[in-house]
């Protein structure tokens, strides 16, 4: 028969010594060292206190129903096309608007109340013998986090140069968050520092300029960007340029400044347990 070791037990060996002896002094020195050294190691290896931490969360994303599309063409009579459905936009730039249909679907695949996928299809009518030479689309959306309460308005910004006749342009991409500094979390207070619109819609022509929008957008500490961008296009001469966007909102990694108790928790693990035995 196979003999198995089913139980093991440590033997406790105790060494005893009188108070004033070499052994006691040595034990004291090593005891102090084993208590102090972990602190030194912890301090030398990127500090004792936890300075930043990350969490993973799928953001709650809601399409705001707005978009702005700016394109240039090779046609001198109609060299720029700008489309938007912003309320004040029409007053300013309606003559340049030739987009006819925008079709949007937000898909919640696992029925958890959060949008996983945004399908957007935009149809632009072009004059005869015209093709787009470049375009830029900006789709603002609301972005919400729960673990570290945050609400902001951010946008999908995509720019492309088109070298030749293209009838259909498809884009598949993921939206990820980009941060320049860790978030500061308060469990009760929602961070609404960036909860202002990406496009200021007040009828001022300058505010609909892509340059202005992007410059303002890039100043944010936390914003979103497209990642894993895959493009496909079908060349051809048509009077309808169709832009298909398929945007995924995956679970994202966000780093933040940990709170007091969390810092203490890690300090505890780093030091007390390290020093304990």
């Amino acid at each position, binding site marked *: 028969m196979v003999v198995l070791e089913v139980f093991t037990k440590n033997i406790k060996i105790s060494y005893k010594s009188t108070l004033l002896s070499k052994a006691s002094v040595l034990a004291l020195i090593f005891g102090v060292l084993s208590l102090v050294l972990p602190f030194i190691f912890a301090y030398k290896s990127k500090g004792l206190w936890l300075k930043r931490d990350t969490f993973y969360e799928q953001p709650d994303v809601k399409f705001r129903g707005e978009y702005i599309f700016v394109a240039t063409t090779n046609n001198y009579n109609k060299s720029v096309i700008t489309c938007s459905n912003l309320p004040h936009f029409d007053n300013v730039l309606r003559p340049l608007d030739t987009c006819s249909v925008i079709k949007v679907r937000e898909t919640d695949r696992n029925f958890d109340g959060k949008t996983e996928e945004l399908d957007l299809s935009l149809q632009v009518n072009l004059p005869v013998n015209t093709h787009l030479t470049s375009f830029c689309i900006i789709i603002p959306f609301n972005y919400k986090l729960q673990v570290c309460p945050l609400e902001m308005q951010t946008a999908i910004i995509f720019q492309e140069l088109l070298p030749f006749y293209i*009838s259909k342009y498809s884009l598949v991409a993921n939206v990820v968050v980009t941060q320049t500094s860790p978030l500061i979390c308060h469990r009760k207070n929602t961070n609404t520092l960036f909860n202002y619109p990406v496009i200021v819609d007040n009828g001022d022509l300058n505010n609909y300029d892509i340059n202005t929008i992007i410059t303002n957008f890039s100043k944010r500490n936390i914003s979103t960007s497209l990642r894993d961008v895959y493009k496909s296009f*079908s060349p051809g001469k048509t009077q309808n340029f169709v832009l298909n966007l398929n945007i995924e909102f995956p679970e994202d990694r966000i780093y933040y400044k940990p709170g007091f108790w969390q810092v203490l928790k890690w300090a505890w693990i780093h030091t007390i347990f390290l020093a304990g035995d």
Partner: protein
Amino acid sequence: MAEVHIIGQITEAKDFPKENLFCKWYLQVGNNWKVISGKKEGQTQVTSPQFGKVCKWSYPIDIHLATAGLQGWPKIYLQVYHLDWLGRSHIFGYGFITVPTTPGTHILDCYTWRPFGTIKDRFVQYFLGGGYQIKNPDLIFSSGERYKLSTEAMGVVSFELCVVLRNFSNYGVEYDTSLENVTTIQSSETNVKKGTTSPILSTTAVPTTTCKANSSCFANSTNNSVTVPPTQQTTALVTTPIPASFFHFDIKTSERSSKNLCICDLTIDYCDLNCCCDKDCSLENKLVFDHCEEDFRQYDTRYCQYVKHIYVNKTPHEFQINQNGLFCIVRSNLPASYIVQRKQPLKSLQDAQFERQNKFNWPKPTHEDSQIFNYFNYTYGKPLLILRNNTIENLQFLKSFVVTSCVVKEDIKYLIDVKSSCSHTNISADNYYLKADTFFRNMTIIANPGLLNVSKHKNFLKNCTKDVCLNVRPKICNEDFEDCVQISPNDTRIKSSCKVNIANNELFCINLVQNVRYNFYHNGSSGLIKVELYLILKSATFYYHQEMEFSQTIEVNFIWWNHTLNYSSHLSGNPGYLVGKPILIANIVSINVPINNTNSTSNATSYKQQLQLYRNPSDFTENFLVLPFVNSEGVCVLSKHKYTPVEFGYNVYLRCEINDYLWIKNLSAKNVCIAVQNTIFKYWALKVTNGTLSNRVIALFGNAYIYNIGDWLRPMFENDLKDILNRTWGEFDRQNKTLKCGNITTLLITEIFHARVDFDDIINQEKILATTFQFDNFQNFTFALNHTLQFYIKLGAQVMFHDITTKKMRKLVDPPSLKIRLPHDFFYPFVKIDNHGVRQALFMNNNSIDRICKNCGDIVNRYCCRYQKRCCEYLNPSGCPTPASPEARISCRTPQFCRSSTDCPMFKQCCDTSICGATCMKPTFSGYRY
């Protein structure tokens, strides 16, 4: 007398659960033994160790015994006690040892035990100490009755005894006298010492093999010494065919030692450039070298000494490197090792294929055997066959791939509908695919390959009957496949031709095929029955200085024979809506239904107006929610064939321009504006019949049934169309040159609220819960007037889908409510009640109800009121009269609660122990007492 000396000590006690132990011992001897000197019993001191858990006693024993026989050889039995902190002593173990019978020094271990009580005893023992003791200590060394004793093991008491025997040989007891007075240590060490000397190997007979470092072994035998050469050179000039067995020899490849190898020497008898170790290079040659090529030898630099090959003056040298680093290996004591690696050539193809598994492979192309014609019946996905010029081919169509121009051909497959368009860039009358003839002439479609009987007629293709090889009869249609005309195949009107106009640098072509539609009527497995072909021809002008493109659309529909498919039979999901499917609508129409009047004798049948749902099966826009189609100029078009369906789940924002005109003869300004607004409504597919929109209903589910009104839902409006039409205003200017219209809505907002619901076991089916239509963007327009009113208005239409699914909860059915009542005489056990209080409410007849109501109408308490109402519900379902007397009315409104009659005001009694009443009536009906 033989004598025994026992000299020694009780050394220590170990492995006891506690310290502070002492021990009582007693030497037990037989009757014929006599103690000459020394004590027969004793008790050790109490030892409490400071270090460790071993109690050292070191109690001396020195006994001199004399005996006349061996019976009753001395045994030492002992009792170990524990002294606790209160000064109580508890038994901690019994044990005995027999004094060794051999002379010498012995180290003995005495394993002790103690009796073992019940759980309760042990519990008490644990906390309070004490325990069982043996009443009769003889039991320790007597062999009888011990099976009843249950014991637990305690610690070990060690003895060190020296036994000296004397005069035993006089009594016939023999022992090795040489061992007398010799110290023996009773331990296993002596055995080990013995074992080392015993196996002496005889080396004379066995031939041994000695192996040397270069791994060639020589068998050394005394008789004949044969040395096997380490390598066998197979140098054979083979001119004859090699026998297959040749390759099964183990051919030892000559592996030269790495010392002489030169890695960069890649040409024989030729000096390789910059290869310093090449023996073909002379010293002079090496002068031309720029550098020496790197050597790829691996050196084990962990060792203190190793040989390194380096180049000095472009000549290779071996250098013995001695490094005296702190951590270099002077000498390795690792066992001799060698590297196991694969160097044998593979022996068979199977081996090679086995090794190939999970390795990289170029895929092998597979050829579909499309060329081989088989006579099996069509099944789903099989290519459709045609007979053209007496050969059987697959029916193919051109398709775009990546770019929009027609670049690939694809088979038309049985029962797979196709709708594809691509553009031709080669425009000429000779382009095969732009000619109408291509699609029907000299071509028959094989109804079913199984019908072709090859074996009977050799010339079967020529004699193909009409029901097997179906002829295609083309029809020429105008745009949208309307007004189709059957034409004969030889009609010249469909001939395409192109004309070049050099002056204008243009090409004018007529009758190019723009749309092709095949309708295949099939009967499932028995194949095709009828083929219809619809063609749309178009003339176009192309310019040579531009790229020429002509877009062609091909459509293939497979339709079940004898089944007509109309729009009304299309569902958008079963049962719930599927994403991307259109939304079902229907119109409410009132129709006159004849009523058979049975009473009247006259023949005139009267009609009753009845509401019914109606969907025009031939018109998509009357079956599904649509928005106008936006053509490439951005103009709204809405017709039977041009529309944008609202697809479930897709939010749409559509903007287009309407470009329409109206006759305005003899119309007031307001009416003109109303007409304009009506035109806008028309483009939103809002049919205005009787000025109201509420005749339209929307299906709750994708499979709504037209005859079930419950499947349909009326949409909600902010304003009815009539209001919007009435709200418009219009005025002509003074010269009747312009018209100003106000309050014209140009934006339709449709919101559809849907949720996922479960149908028994089909889960998450989309159901529309509400639809709202709102109108917005009211604008004022100024139109220029002519005979007609030409107007351009920019329209908008928004569709929004809102998912309003809430979290599903499973709720349990309410448990059955049990009405448990106390016996009727529970509180008044001594009051006699008629009929023994059996309540028969269920079997109340009208008389008794009358009686209850008559009586309880004046009784003043809540119960009365309640029962009165109950009466009313029996008698007068529409309502309940107020109590007759004013006193009763007041009391019914403000009942006074009581526990006994003393709680109630004077002359009032507590009835039924809860409400104060004027009188407690004698029960008029069994069960009610007041």
